[in-house]
Every structure is written in structure tokens, then in C-alpha cells.
């Protein structure tokens, strides 16, 4: 089963000055598994993802991707690992000055220089079909709605055929219907492309659709680990409160 481990986090601690965001976090994500990371805002969910992709360095601890310790890798070798990872940012992070076509082909051209322009164009159109937005190919990001941006961001991440996908709040800011659609899309793509995924969210509907397993971060530690069913049925008063009054707690209303 050790070969099956795509991501392994060992005793990860991340501090910003005096503030401890994550403390001795350990987790394993297996091939083709969808792990959902829950937690209230500011509990270090996005920091965990950024440590996994190497955008932030852990204060202590180790992160292995396909058994390679990424903290020991040179930037060149880290980039080799990153070529197999897709990352969907909370705000989609589409390149403002490029059209949708350029956004998608930008990474592909650089990662696969052997492809000619026709092959790149075909791959772009094919990937846009997967997210049902083939018509948007010549649009600028400013012309897209929030939901469309998420889909294009997703298309840009999967065009490189990643083995591992990291999602940072994929449904935040979307209406319930769009949120459900995106969650369903993520699940379909994961099944179609056989990807391993880590999804950071506090959207229970999204998690119910996608998750194989979930963890809950609280006070810089993993407070719970199990299935969504176990999480929502838990006797823990904090978890019960979080899931029954999720929206109320987030907005403070």
C-alpha cells in the first residue's frame, strides 16, 4: 500500500512569527482518493495546500509527493513534481491579459514543446468541452461570470493531465446550483481522469458529493478524520454546531 501513497504529510508545523497555523499535522492521501479538508476560515486549510505544492515552506515536518520529499528538492526538481499537479485557486487566478485559449495553452506549450499548434488547439478545445465551455475560447477573463471562471480555472489545471489535483475552496462565492454543478464536475473529472484530489472547503454539499474521506482542522490540529457520514453524525458538539449552523457561523448572522 506504500506505493499507493500519492501525498504523505509528516508532522507538518507552520508558524508565522508567533502564530502557529498548523501543528504536527500528519496525513496520507492514496491514489484516486478524494480527501476533503474542512475547517473554519483562518484554520490553515489553504496554508496546508500551499505547503503541499511548495508555495510555502513548512516550519517543521516533511511532505512527500510520490515518495519524494519536496522540501529537499531543488527548484528544478520541484518543478518536475509540479508538472504532475493541478491547482485550482480560490479566485481562479486566470491570467487577466490572456484569452481563455491563451490561458489554457500557456502551460501546455511550455510543458509539451513537442506539440504543434494544431495539437495544442485540439487539446484546448477538448478540455473546454470537458467543462462545457467550448464557446468561451476567445473570451477574456473579465467577460466571464464567477462560475465560468471556476470552470476555466479547472480546465487550465487539468489540461496538463495531472496525477494530483489540489482545490482551494472550489465553490466559494457561487450560488447553490453552480456550487453543486462544479462539485459534480470535479467528481466526474476525477473519475474520468483517475486523479487523486485534496479539496479544501467549508461547503458541506460540495463535500458530500466529492469526498471519499474528510479531515477537520481546528486549533492548528486535525480534530477529526473519517467519512462525511461519520463527521456529520459525530457527537462532538463543535462539529454538530459547525455542520448544522455552517452558514450562520460563517457569516455571523
Amino acid at each position, binding site marked *: 500500500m506504500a506505493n499507493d501513497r500519492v501525498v504523505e504529510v509528516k508532522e507538518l508545523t507552520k508558524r508565522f512569527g508567533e502564530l502557529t497555523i498548523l501543528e504536527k499535522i500528519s496525513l496520507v492521501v492514496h491514489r484516486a482518493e478524494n480527501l476533503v479538508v474542512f475547517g473554519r476560515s483562518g484554520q490553515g486549510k489553504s496554508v496546508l495546500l500551499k505547503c503541499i505544492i511548495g508555495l510555502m515552506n513548512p516550519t517543521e515536518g516533511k511532505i512527500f509527493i510520490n515518495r519524494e520529499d519536496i522540501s529537499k528538492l531543488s527548484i528544478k526538481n520541484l518543478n518536475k513534481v509540479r508538472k504532475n499537479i493541478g491547482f485550482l485557486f480560490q479566485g481562479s487566478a486566470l*491570467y*487577466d491579459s490572456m484569452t481563455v485559449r491563451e490561458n489554457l495553452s500557456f502551460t501546455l506549450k511550455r510543458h509539451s514543446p513537442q506539440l504543434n499548434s494544431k495539437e495544442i488547439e485540439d487539446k484546448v478545445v477538448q478540455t473546454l468541452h470537458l467543462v462545457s465551455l467550448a464557446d468561451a475560447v476567445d473570451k477574456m477573463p473579465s467577460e466571464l461570470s464567477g462560475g465560468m471562471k471556476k470552470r476555466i480555472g479547472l480546465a487550465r489545471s487539468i489540461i496538463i493531465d495531472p496525477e494530483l489535483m489540489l482545490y482551494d475552496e472550489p465553490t466559494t462565492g457561487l450560488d447553490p446550483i453552480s456550487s453543486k454543478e462544479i462539485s459534480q464536475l470535479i467528481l466526474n473529472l476525477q473519475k474520468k481522469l483517475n486523479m487523486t484530489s485534496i479539496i479544501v472547503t467549508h461547503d458541506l454539499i460540495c463535500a458530500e458529493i466529492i469526498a471519499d474521506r474528510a479531515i477537520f482542522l481546528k486549533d492548528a490540529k486535525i480534530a477529526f478524520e473519517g467519512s462525511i457520514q461519520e463527521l456529520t453524525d459525530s457527537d462532538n458538539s463543535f462539529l454538530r454546531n459547525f455542520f448544522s449552523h455552517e452558514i450562520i457561523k460563517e457569516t455571523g448572522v
Partner: protein
Amino acid sequence: MKLPRHRYGRRLSYTDYIYNFFATISGLTVFNFEFFKQAFKPPLEIAEIKKHMDELGVKTFGIVSITGLIIGLVLAMQSQPVLQRFGASDFLPGMVALSVVRELGPVITALIFAGRVSSGIGAELGSMRVTEQIDAMEVSAINPFKFLVVTRVIATTMILPILSVYVIVIAIIGGYFAVIIAENMNFQYYIDSVIRAVQFGDFIPGVAKTFVFGYIVGIVGAYKGFTAEGGTEGVGRASTTSVVISSLLILIFDMILVKITLWLWPTIG
């Protein structure tokens, strides 16, 4: 590349300002080293450099044309009565040309360029930083420094000398307009006087220093944008501080480069 973080907040003490001053100097130094480390590594991103040069040329063409014309006009208008007082009106074309070629053309073009371009680069990269577009590039295993910073800095370094030569020509023509308003001088005589007065040795240091100014505009704008933090407020700060720092550095380096030129080639002085 590790860059020092600045201190931001509503109430900054004097020590915070001093700290930020030294953080900027050390950050810019590290950024410069990184530029030279990355500039010659493949891929050279030639298409991106050409795209930025086109954009910068179009963006600044109008404003530098007007500026050049006005510099020449005002310089000639101001100098003409003074030279007449000393009976030296014949020196007017030469004086306008020498002032414009040696100092005013390059420096004023660079300052206008800093206002227009350095702020633009600071705002554009700053906005890319705060909306995680630079992070998106990094996680896609693409070197954002190479693609965003190196290409822009090379483009500003290459385009400013071209704009400066253009401004010098326009300013000399502007000077002629002021001359014909005041006295009857034909264009051929004016141009002959200009060519007699300006030697090749006047032209080269004047234009050569604009390569340095172009580099300053690019690197400062890119540094401030690339290291922006704190949302839209950070983008605004990156844009304005880019202009202030690059303008100041242009004037400081102008002083140093003039001194070096006079020291190396005293005959030019």
C-alpha cells in the same frame, strides 16, 4: 530568491520607515542579481519581449511627442532673448541642440517614461500578485520571474533609447518653431547650425545613459509589483512608489553617469 518584507500598517513609526528604506534597497539589490542570473537562461521569450516593446512604444509615443516638442519650443523661447542681449543669437540652434542632446532629451523622456511605464508595470504585476496569478504560474512549473520580470525589463531597456532619440529630433524641430516666430531663419541654416554644434561625442553619452534609465524604470516597477502585498491598497502602493523610486534613481544615476563621462572623456565636456 528571498526578499525582505516591508512593514505596512495604519501607524508606522520613524523606525518602520527607516526599516522599509533599507528593505527596499536590499530587496532591489537581490532583484537585480536575480535578473542577471535569469536573463540569459533559455527560454529567451523573444515574442513576449517584442510584445512588451510594441505596447510600451504605443503607450508612450503620444506623450513623449508632445513633451519633446514643448521642450524644444520653451528652451528656444527662453534662450532667444538672453542670447540676443549678448549679441549671440547665432548660437541659438546649437545651444538648443546641445542642451537637448546631452541632458534634457534623455532625462525628461526617462522621467515621463517612469511616470507612464514604471507605474503601469508596478500596478500590473502587483495586481497579478494579489490575485494569485503569479502563484498560479509558479505552481504550473513556469518561472514567473523570467516570464514577467525579465521580459519587461529588457523591453524597457531597449525601447527608452529609441524614444529618447525620437524626442531629441522632435525637440530640435520644436526649437525651430520658436526661432521662426522671433526671427527670420531658414530651416537649412538652422539644421546646419545644429549639425555644426553637436558632435558625435555629445550624442553617444546622452543616448547611452538612457539604457540605464530604461533598466531602472523596468526593474523598479517590476520589483514593486512582484513584491506587492495587501490587496488593492498594495497594488496602489506598488504603482506610486515605483514612480517615486524610479524617478529618484534616474536623477541620481544621471548625476553619476555625467560625472563618469566627463572623467573618462574630458574632451567631450
